């Protein structure tokens, strides 16, 4: 059974009486232990799909199941149980700025387990060691680089050893070296811990390094769901343009981007 099942998901945003359909009948599965990359141009619906998959925005129609349990229309208790099964690395890292890196990683452990303080400290050190950030345990997020913040965010996302980790543009704002480090971490988590990864990205180099499967969105619809080879060999001119990194025709696709960002942020 697939660990993530997305079925006929629609998402419509409404603002000032104007309706914008951002997701239009999205369906796919993610198998255990694989890495799925969700691709697409700006405003294509990638981030909205991610937010629907983590329960931050309910779909207008359709269903999302994680490890067999629906997260749509469920009460907070069931949603909390579902949240234990996944971690999220946000685009900015989303670390709490008033806390040190170590305290950030300890937060979900302390909140959801009844471990003693010294046990939590050991768990935090293990997680930070896994992402190569143990030396920054006592530093504030503002004192470390963007790449380190992402890795700290990843350590927090895997603190409770979830089955699935969602990544929202993990390489956004990072230099190529930091991007490669994050990609290597994603592969390491999959290989050593068997984690399932769902990565929203538009960086083709990253896709080629980490993807087992790819899902490409265009104007809220799936235009490709398959392997990396399927993506690279697709005859679709839109997909080819994206793969080659050409911007022609992509500007118009971003027309809804600011509208949706306004609603999401």
């Amino acid at each position, binding site marked *: 059974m697939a660990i993530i099942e997305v079925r006929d998901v629609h998402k419509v945003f409404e603002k000032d009486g104007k309706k914008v359909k951002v997701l239009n009948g999205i369906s796919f599965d993610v198998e255990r232990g694989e890495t799925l990359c969700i691709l697409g141009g700006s405003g294509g619906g990638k981030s909205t799909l991610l937010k629907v998959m983590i329960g*931050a925005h309910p779909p207008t129609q359709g269903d999302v199941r994680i490890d067999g349990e629906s997260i749509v229309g469920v009460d907070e208790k069931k949603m909390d149980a579902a949240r234990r099964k996944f971690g999220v690395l946000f685009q900015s890292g989303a670390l*709490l*700025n008033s806390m040190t890196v170590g305290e950030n990683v300890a937060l979900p452990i302390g909140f959801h387990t009844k471990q003693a303080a010294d046990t939590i400290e050991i768990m935090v050190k293990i997680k930070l060691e896994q992402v190569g950030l143990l030396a920054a345990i006592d530093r504030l997020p503002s004192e470390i680089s963007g790449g380190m913040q992402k890795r700290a965010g990843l350590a927090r996302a895997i603190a409770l050893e979830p089955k699935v980790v969602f990544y929202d543009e993990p390489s956004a704002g990072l230099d190529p070296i930091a991007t490669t480090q994050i990609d290597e971490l994603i592969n390491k988590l999959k290989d050593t811990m068997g984690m399932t990864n769902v990565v929203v990205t538009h960086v083709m180099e990253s896709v080629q390094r980490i993807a087992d499967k790819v899902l490409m969105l265009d104007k809220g619809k799936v235009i490709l769901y398959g392997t990396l080879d399927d993506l690279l060999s697709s005859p679709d001119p839109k997909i080819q343009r994206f793969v080659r990194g050409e911007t022609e025709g992509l500007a118009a696709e971003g027309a809804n981007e600011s509208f949706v*960002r306004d609603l999401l942020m």
Partner: protein
Amino acid sequence: MHQIGVKSLFIVCLVIILVGAILVLQTADQFEKFGAKSFVARMICIAIIRELGPLMTAIVLSGRVGAAFTAGLGSMVINEEVLALKTMGINPVGYLVAPRFIAICIMLPCLTAYAYLLGNVGGYLVGTSMYNIPPSEYLNGVYKSLKSVEIIAGLVKSMIFGAIICMVACYNALTVRGGPEGVGRNTMISVVNSLVAIIIADALFTAALAKRIYGV
């Protein structure tokens, strides 16, 4: 509590000393014309205890602390920190709002207590130095005006103001849309709305309890 209470203490003290002083400056002449200069101290004390102590403290805190709540939490919203808490199964209201609510509901009455004292100090300094009211007469007037029920009512009122400031500020923070611009907009809305809400709550409180507490 340190941020709300200790760091607001100086500005609250400064404002309320000046308010006490201004009240004397504005009214002492009028009282003098009717030969009632000795009542200045009573009038100032009643005004500070019943109304100006809790109100001015709340106004200062709505600008200083309420705005900080909205800007701080609003920034957390746009940086996805609040969403991160939700996805970790941590209720942002319980984790971020509740401590602020408790802190302001405790600290605002504490600051109001300082305001009671320093408002009267401001009046005393001006009254005795500029209008030649004998210090003993001024202090006696203050003493005669102090009623424990009014002091307690003012402190309770300030606690209500604290709750209002926190609720308005945090609501505006958690509903921020549109990035940093939205944070600025909601901070302004938060301060204006909390000021209006405080005044309305004050009017309702006074109207409902005036007869019972103040005997008017």
